[in-house]
């Protein structure tokens, strides 16, 4: 396999006047675990829909496994698996029936179907639930069957759109481990999420999307370094004070609550002590996704 698993060039998608995807460009190598990170409505799901041939791009081009998503859709579909933000399962069929139904659509013969169903359900620890109707399963169980379904064609490239959304912590952990293992086995994985932590845990590279554009693309470590050069401190004082008395870049100020971006934590603490106001609580914060967006979008604005 040479070349890139995914090649996206100036990709655009408009819904009437809304620019859902507004000219994005990125590449993904084979075997890479690549994440698209962004808030709801950033254009992540639309990007996935275009790459999985479920939507036509309005402009630009995209190649998956070397095939054009618009002109060679069928070739693309043979090589991908999709775990969408909505479950692709029929709730009035059992786990096994779902896997078998979709296997037939992939044109597998009966013998292969039996073998593959067993393998996939075993892989996700769901074989013992094979005769349970999907409607009777918990969200976590459903998602496992859903992932098993996505793996039916033994895809080279797997798209996972918000795979841990709405799951309990245990299922979330299980699914994350599974994704990590897929990547270790050499599969290319494209993951969308709005959880920063998930990206740090799994992704080798991440593109941050906002309002249809990619605002940053790098390894999670580099991105974090970029945003962690300044500390963000959350302080709750016993009584309200004038916010101008506090040094540092004010992010948020509500009466006696302040969120401040500071250059140096120690000097900030010293100054705070000098104010002679009792501190109720103080904590340093990881930059939240919102903070990153505020920062990225204002930087964008300043450059423009």
């Amino acid at each position, binding site marked *: 396999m040479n070349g890139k698993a995914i090649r996206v060039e100036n990709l655009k998608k408009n*819904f009437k006047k809304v620019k859902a995807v507004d000219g994005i460009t990125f590449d993904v190598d084979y075997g890479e675990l690549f994440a698209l990170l962004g808030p709801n409505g950033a254009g992540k799901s639309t990007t996935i*829909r275009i790459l*999985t*041939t*479920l*939507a*036509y791009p309005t402009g630009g081009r995209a190649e998956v496994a070397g095939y054009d998503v618009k002109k060679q859709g*069928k070739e693309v*579909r*043979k090589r*991908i698996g*999709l775990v*969408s*933000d*909505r*479950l*692709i*399962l*029929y709730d*009035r*069929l059992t786990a096994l029936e779902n896997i078998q*139904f*979709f296997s*037939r*659509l*992939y*044109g597998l013969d009966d013998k292969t179907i039996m073998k593959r169903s067993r393998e996939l359900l075993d892989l996700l620890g769901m074989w013992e639930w094979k005769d349970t109707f999907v409607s009777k399963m918990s969200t976590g169980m459903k998602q496992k069957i859903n992932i098993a*379904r996505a793996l039916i*064609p033994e895809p080279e490239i797997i798209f996972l759109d918000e795979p841990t959304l709405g799951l309990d912590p245990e299922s979330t952990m299980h699914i994350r481990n599974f994704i990590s293992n897929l990547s270790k086995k050499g599969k290319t994985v494209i993951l969308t999420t709005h959880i920063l932590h998930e990206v740090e845990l799994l992704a080798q590279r991440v593109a941050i999307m906002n309002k249809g554009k990619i605002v940053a693309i790098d390894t999670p470590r580099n991105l974090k370094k970029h945003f962690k050069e300044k500390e963000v401190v959350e302080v709750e004082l016993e009584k309200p004070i004038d916010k101008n008395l506090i040094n540092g870049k004010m992010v948020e100020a509500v009466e006696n609550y302040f969120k401040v971006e500071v250059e140096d934590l120690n000097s900030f603490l010293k100054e705070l002590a000098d104010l002679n106001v009792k501190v109720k609580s103080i904590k340093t914060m990881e930059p939240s996704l919102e903070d990153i967006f505020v920062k990225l979008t204002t930087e964008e604005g300043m450059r423009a």
Partner: protein
Amino acid sequence: MKALMIAWKDLKFLLRSRTMLAFSIAMPIISMLMMGYIFPQNGGEMKGKIGFYSQDLLFNVMTKSAPSTMVVVYRTKKDLINALAKGDISVGAVIPKNFTTAFAMGKASLDVIPNPANPQAGVVLAQMIPAMMENAKRNAPKKVKVNLTNVDGSAFNYYDFMAPGIMAMIAIMSVSNGLAASITRERELGTMDGLMVTPINRGNIVVGKILAQTVRGVVQALIVLGVSILLFGVTIEGSVWTTILLLILGTFSFIGIGIIITSSVKEQETAQVIMTTITFPMLFFSGVFFPIEQMPKFIQYVAYVFPLTYAADALRKVMTLGVGFSYVKLDVMVLLAFAIVSSVVATLSFQKLIQD
């Protein structure tokens, strides 16, 4: 092949929802029972009396010989009105003075008041009055009895006219709702994405849905047929196979239209509202309840837009007249054209789904 799998999956879905299955079976039975009983049977035999208030002496003498089960004579006009109000008589007639003399000269007239509770029966009875007069004049009490019969000589009733149309109608109605649900639900739930992300030709999805819904519609229509035969004495004069073939064709011809509509809207509710907007007028325009020939000219043109019109017409000819396939050739050709054109357009419009 792949289309068959999708069809089988859809049918399995229907079979596994007990409520849906129960209602799919109950719906045609209930509709049929309803329609069978609300319409008058045996050609609408009128049970009702005619009340007279006569100022004409000779007329009074004539009514003496009339059977009391049919004719009541009142002394005053007020009695007549009261009898109407109480429902004792279905129609009241006021006979003016010198009515018989005028009648002999051929220029008699009388006022007839139908009972507002059942104006239809009143009108029918009122039409009998001149005939009665005619009989009385000739002094020949023997009446000519006209019997409406079927081909086999059994009594024809309105239900015989309706049953074939209702069969086709129920098949089409249930299919239109089922289709709206089956496509838009898959879109809403996201399983449609799952079908579309597999490397099958997307036309298979449409064909699969068409097959599943046709099977469902035909099964329901056969239930209707069974109920009609068992409970209402409807007979199939023609070939049973032609009847079934026409049912399949009628159902099939409408499904493409259903898919075009449902794949152009996103929500299940919208799809169902649109389908109802189409199927409801179709019921009245397609000659299921009222013969098309009795409708105003422009409505007749509208009627020919709906495939149900042709399905009902062909089924009626085969079931009540017992004619063979060659007599319904035109209907069959039109239905086929509907089916093919709409299925092709449906498959194309379904491809457009992918664009957003």
